[in-house]
């Protein structure tokens, strides 16, 4: 009797595992294998074509840590991430709060705000290149008409403005994501909590601070993690506006990885850069999750 029972349990487990086998195979082939391959290549010197791959141990990683253009790229991506975390998410939250309050045309705004994120980064980059154009650009035109012609410049070719201009494009393209997630979070807050706060005589500000913010913490954490991960991996906008220039002023980690891979034909080194980059993103996400857990507990 007991043996029969064990056999049935094994059969059930086997059947279940057989059903997940296709997904597992796909994950192994398209997820785990490339992941391992990147690690393997990162300890080799390889030009992406030759049959021979020379084992170089940790030499590629040592070089990554000494590569000032790589760390400059990390700094640039971090700078844009800070801009996005503050300004982009602040705008997204304000707009989400307005739409949540039921302003007129709320549904139309939802669609309009969600349009930039669904556009191709390359297209967005090209459109903004025209806006920032030094001679025929909309921005310079507006400034000149406002009597501020002395501020006009080739915005994307000036090292003082290139990075922040790219950051603005990225924020414009990205705020819609935050808006949608934050709006969903706001609409998930039970209305009873606000009613109870009303009964207690709380004003709008107190309701925002003592009801909205605590209830939104998990959503904020999600938005923050997505913003950091998305921004650190910025590429298409850079490729279509500045190509990393002028000089190295708008280089970011992904453009450096691509330059190593295709420009310098150093696939092994590019993989080492990718591994270091992946580890950094993982650490950032883990710190973020840890903070959010402690905030929830508090």
């Amino acid at each position, binding site marked *: 009797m007991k043996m029969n029972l064990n056999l049935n349990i094994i059969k059930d487990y086997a059947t279940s595992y057989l059903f997940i086998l296709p997904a597992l195979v796909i994950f192994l082939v398209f997820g785990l294998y490339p992941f391992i391959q990147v690690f393997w290549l990162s300890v080799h010197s390889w030009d992406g074509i030759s*049959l021979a791959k020379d084992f170089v141990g940790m030499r590629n990683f040592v070089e990554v840590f000494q590569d000032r253009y790589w760390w400059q790229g990390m700094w640039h991506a971090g700078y844009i991430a800070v801009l996005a975390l503050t300004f982009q998410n602040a705008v997204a939250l304000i707009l989400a709060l307005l739409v949540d309050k039921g302003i007129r045309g709320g549904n139309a705004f939802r669609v309009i705000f969600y349009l930039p994120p669904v556009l191709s980064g390359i297209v967005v980059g090209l459109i903004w290149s025209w806006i920032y154009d030094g*001679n025929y650009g909309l921005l310079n035109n507006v400034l000149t008409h406002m009597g501020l012609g002395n501020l006009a410049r080739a915005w994307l*070719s000036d090292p003082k403005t290139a990075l922040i201009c790219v950051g603005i494009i990225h924020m414009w393209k990205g705020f819609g994501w935050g808006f949608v997630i934050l709006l969903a979070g706001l609409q998930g807050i039970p209305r009873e909590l606000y009613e109870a706060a009303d009964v207690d005589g709380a004003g709008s500000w107190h309701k925002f601070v003592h009801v909205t913010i605590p209830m939104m913490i998990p959503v904020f954490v999600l938005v923050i993690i997505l913003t950091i991960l998305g921004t650190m991996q910025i590429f298409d906008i850079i490729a279509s506006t500045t190509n990393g*220039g002028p*000089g190295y002023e708008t280089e970011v980690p992904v453009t450096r990885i691509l330059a190593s891979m295709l420009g310098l034909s150093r696939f092994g080194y590019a993989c080492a850069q990718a591994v270091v980059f992946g580890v950094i993103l993982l650490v950032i996400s883990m710190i973020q999750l840890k903070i959010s857990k402690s905030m929830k507990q508090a």
Partner: protein
Amino acid sequence: MRRIILTMSVIAGFFAVIAGCAGCGTKPSDSAAGKKSAVVVWHWMSDREEAFQELAKRYEEQTGIVVDFQLFAPSEAYSNKVRASAQTNTLPDIYGILAETRDYASFIKAGYVADLTASMQENDGAWQNTFFKKALTMDTFVEGNQFEVKPGIYGVPIDVTNIQFLYNKDLFAKAGLDPEKPPQTFAEFIEAGKKLKAKNIQGLVSGWGEIWMINCLADNFAWNVMGKDKVLATIKGDVAYTDPDWIKVFVLFKEMGESGVLASGMITMVNKNAEQTFANQRAAMAFNGSWCVNVYKGMNPDLNYGTFLPPQVSKNNPVVLWGGAGSSFKVNASSPRKEQAIAFLKWLTAAEQQAFLAKETSNLPANKDSLLNIPPVLRQFADAMQYAVHPSQLPYNEYPRVVEAMGKGIQLIIIGQKSPVELAKELASLKSEELKRAQKQ
């Protein structure tokens, strides 16, 4: 039991699909379904796709052999596809390699490219002699080349190209410049830029966001300022970038930046935008390759323009420009249809087919006997082929990191963020690092 049979069926079905998919694309030469024994050609030239299809049709009519041209664009995607296919040994019969010479050499050494020397040289070099001499040099590896490739000819040029200055004759006239007398010296070039600026017309535009175009002009100037031998000595590591001649080259870019001859924002501009700017008459001069004739024709058929050589800086050495084979096809060394592929390429590069391609696509043909009926501007590019050199034709090539740093550094010189001496020192230090690394390896 029924459940287990059902489960097993699902699993079997899944693996059948995977196995089926695995077959997709593994044999590019069989992909033209129903086309028996087609010679498969992979290319990236979307502007030539129609002409290629027409030629394939004519070839089939003449020989009965089917040629299947397969387009993969844009060029970056094509390039990645070729690299990936090489790794899985699934390259087609004929393909092109979009990469630097060192990568081309790696393809050859890995056995992916057939040596065409014997075919080129049979019948007293009948095939080889149909090409512009400079068209073949990019596909030729000479004895003692730095990449250690067995000497020989490994590719078939389809067209040739060179990069020159272009000027808008109407805008020149508007600025009071002689539309039939473009600048010849660097001083005249700067002067022309100033006159244009005075009339509120932008001067030179080019895709200098793509640093290879900046390096191209820097090389032109370097050859003119110090001559071929000294440039080669620098690449070899015998002359430092801190040499006064190199600093003089970088100073030229500083002067261009300061004089206002350069169009606004061009140091981060991609070449496509630069082409639009020149075609729309928003800049009076451009630095672009011979492919631009076709591009400008599409953007503004009425554009009235001519070409001129890179402005001369020194009289001690000749003016040169970048040029050589534009696009070239390689034959897969392990193709079962290698002979058919070579026969097709011979036909494709014969005068009649080359003239057809030149007429249809406004590109400079590789066959020197097919220059009749090309547009006048293209004729100017053809005439300038005598001044063309290409870094990949040289016995030594500069390290990619140095090349990148030079292009990026010149961008910063133009906008006054770096001095020529600073760049020279940076390049010298980088070069020394690369030489040390090469010695270790």
